[in-house]
């Protein structure tokens, strides 16, 4: 909301309200959060897709979430929009827990939009753009109130011609379809838009266009984003704060600049060393860090232990997520618990 659309390179978190994430949830005291996750765990059978995760999504700000595939990022997105329910813990919308009933959930969904990863799958091929973008409006009884005009405005806002109204998704390539997806996510004028890898299915040249569009829309509408990606380079461009996830749990979180220039957690360092971007601040990070092979970790140990290049004896005990300066880190090396032994 406060950031101009042109501020494409890593936005600073200067004087921003503290983005809070912590295992206890006590640091998430900000009452202004649109959506808050409090110690959320989601299991699928024996796997914990999301493990005791707490974070807050604040108005007008972008929270980037990075991690490799299968680390539970998408599950977080699905939890936030209510496509999944947590096994334990709680999600809150404006301070109140998510309703259990279908009808109650619909009221929450009215304020949360979602942009999906694969624009080829996310749009019903049998519907016209009018139906796709207008569907959320109809669902919430807002169509009669100039719904068609609103769809026109939305298509215009995402850079599609007004004549697109009666075309079908098959007329568009990936970038065009993702614009439609964004228009749909914005249809109800949500406070928060969850972007689950919105660019990873697109060509590199199109990726930049979509990112710029998202930033521009945020500047105009004061949107909050939960921006999920495995691409740190993209996340760095859009986010105010970054959360690094491994095995469903937060490894490190904090202001984007701090995390990307001075990563403290070994996993964040490894992720950053793999970034192939051309920004000068990456070069000083040196060569790529190779992670060990993934093996099962004994219960109660650090989830990253088997792959960590700096694993040591203390890692058999899981490190707590602790505040270090302006960020939160879960690593004994950083927080000092038994380091150096």
């Amino acid at each position: 909301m406060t950031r101009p659309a042109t501020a494409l390179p890593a936005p600073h978190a200067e004087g921003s309200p503290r983005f809070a994430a912590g295992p206890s949830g006590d640091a998430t005291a900000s009452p202004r959060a649109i959506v808050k996750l409090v110690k959320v765990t989601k299991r699928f059978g024996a796997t914990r897709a999301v493990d005791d995760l707490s974070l807050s999504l604040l108005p007008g700000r972008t929270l980037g979430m990075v991690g490799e595939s299968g680390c539970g990022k998408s599950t977080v997105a699905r939890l936030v929009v209510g496509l999944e329910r947590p096994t334990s813990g709680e999600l809150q919308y404006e301070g109140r827990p998510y309703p259990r009933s279908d009808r109650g959930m619909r009221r929450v969904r009215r304020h949360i939009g979602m942009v999906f990863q694969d624009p080829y799958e996310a749009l019903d091929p049998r519907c016209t753009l009018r139906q796709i973008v207008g569907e959320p409006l109809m669902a919430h009884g807002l169509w009669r109130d100039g719904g068609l005009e609103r769809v026109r405005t939305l298509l215009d806002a995402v850079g599609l011609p007004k004549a697109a109204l009666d075309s079908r998704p098959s007329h568009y390539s990936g970038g065009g379809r993702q614009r439609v997806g964004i228009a749909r996510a914005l249809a109800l004028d949500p406070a928060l838009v969850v972007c689950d890898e919105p660019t990873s299915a697109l060509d590199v040249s199109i990726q930049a266009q979509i990112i710029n569009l998202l930033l521009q829309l945020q500047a105009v509408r004061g949107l909050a984003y939960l921006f999920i990606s495995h691409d740190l380079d993209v996340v760095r461009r859009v986010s105010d704060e970054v959360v690094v996830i491994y095995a469903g749990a937060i490894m490190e979180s904090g202001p984007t600049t701090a995390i990307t220039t001075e990563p403290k957690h070994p996993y964040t360092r490894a992720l950053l060393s793999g970034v192939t971007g051309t920004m000068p601040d990456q070069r000083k990070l040196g060569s790529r860090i190779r992670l060990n092979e993934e093996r099962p970790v004994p219960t109660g140990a650090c989830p990253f232990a088997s792959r960590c290049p700096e694993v040591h004896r203390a890692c058999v005990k899981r490190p707590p997520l602790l505040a270090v300066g302006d960020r939160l880190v879960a690593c004994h090396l950083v927080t000092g618990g038994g380091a150096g032994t």
Partner: protein
Amino acid sequence: MAAVLLQSEPTETFADRRFRFHPRAALLAGLILLGALIVFALLAPLFGSPYRVFADGLNAQGLPLGLGAPGHLLGTDEIGRDMLARLASAGRIDLEMTFIADITSMGLGIVVGLVAGFYRGLVEQVLMRITDVFLSVPTIVSGLALASVVGEGLTGIVVVVTALYWAWTARVIYGEVLRLRSRVFVEAAVAAGVPRMTILRRHIVPHLSSLMLVLSALNAASVVSIGAGLSYLGAGVQLPRPEWGNMLEEGENALGYAPHLVVEPLVMIILTVLAFMLISEGLTNRGPTAREKTWLDK
């Protein structure tokens, strides 16, 4: 190589190309065949009454007239009735039975499949277990048993065939609904707060329409044979009202000296099944993936 191919092309006639390359050839053939059968059945009154016994309907030995007899193109039966008139009249009741039973069994199957696939939990479990029961009963035996309860005639056979066949449709539709449910565009609608019934109507049913068409053609093929089969076994349409199945049964005794009494109704049944099979084949190949030509088709 390419030159050879190019040279060979002009020698093909238009009809060749059409038959070999037109993806809807089967559909066209099936529709024409079915149309011909319907016209034949509708024209039944033109061929005279199926009950009229002709004085000259039997030969000197008192045996039925064969194919091509004067005045009786398809011969006569054992008491001298015109086979053409009987086959056409029977066709009417068979096709009527097929269309009605196809619609009722498809309708029931579609509703059950949709509801079970879309509303999970207890509803799904109950409906699909019932479906499993209906799938597991032996068709003919339970059909006969059921027929003895619901009675004879057209209504009886429609009820029996519906009971025997709805479960197949329910199974297939259910599976397809489950597949569609997990598509991202359905999830996107859920995430936008679209009510369930709207999702069903707008994002599930339209994607089922082509499958429903194929299924109903396949289903019709089964319905024809089981309908005639039950009548053959004495359930369903009763003599003296002619029906292909009971005509078969009637002609059986004369197989030794008048095989046309069996062959003719049999051919009618086969042609009807074939028509529906061709239609379903043609509809299947009409799908978006099947329409693309591969190098094999060239």
